[in-house]
């Protein structure tokens, strides 16, 4: 879902293909962005800001695990929605498959 690297095998030697690098960097930035949003959303949902102890207690830990699972669900749901609506109305750029 978040890290859909292609799996074509490339010759181990050869020049640097800037377009490939750019795509990989864009994908890395996207994964980092999604991760940061996930961390901040689940912190808001699960962690009490009284900060009375340094460790996650039982309830917070269980909540975080479920929160991540549900976040992935919502990510899938929104993805399907965007595909059925053929991408955002004013976005003319084509958005290739799930990559």
């Amino acid at each position, binding site marked *: 879902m978040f890290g859909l690297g292609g799996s074509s095998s490339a010759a181990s030697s050869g020049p640097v293909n800037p377009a490939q690098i750019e795509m990989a960097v*864009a994908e890395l930035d*996207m994964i980092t*962005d*999604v991760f940061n*949003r996930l961390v901040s*959303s689940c912190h*808001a*949902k*699960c962690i009490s800001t009284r900060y009375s102890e340094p460790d996650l207690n039982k309830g917070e830990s*269980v*909540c975080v*695990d*479920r*929160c991540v*699972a*549900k*976040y992935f*669900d*919502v*990510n899938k*749901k*929104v*993805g399907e*929605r*965007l595909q059925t*609506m053929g*991408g*955002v*109305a*004013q*976005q*003319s*750029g084509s*958005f290739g498959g799930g990559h």
Partner: protein
Amino acid sequence: MDFSQFNSAERATLNTIIEKKQMQDFMKLYSGLVERCFNSCVNDFTSKSLGSKEDICVQNCTDKFLKHSERVGARFAEHNAEQMNQQAKP
């Protein structure tokens, strides 16, 4: 954006840049929607999967945001055009 000031080579370069930016904007819209609709619709962590009420809420939240964004886009273009004419008057 007035493109008449660019020659054809510049327009080609700009179009490639614009296409990449539209891809990035679409990804930001996507991850922004996930965050916004998750925060608004999902509040019950007694289970690992989305409840039916949460599921409907996420769909309405996504649709509504896209329609909202579209309407703001239309008004935005109208206001910008209006200002361009005001400036163009001698």
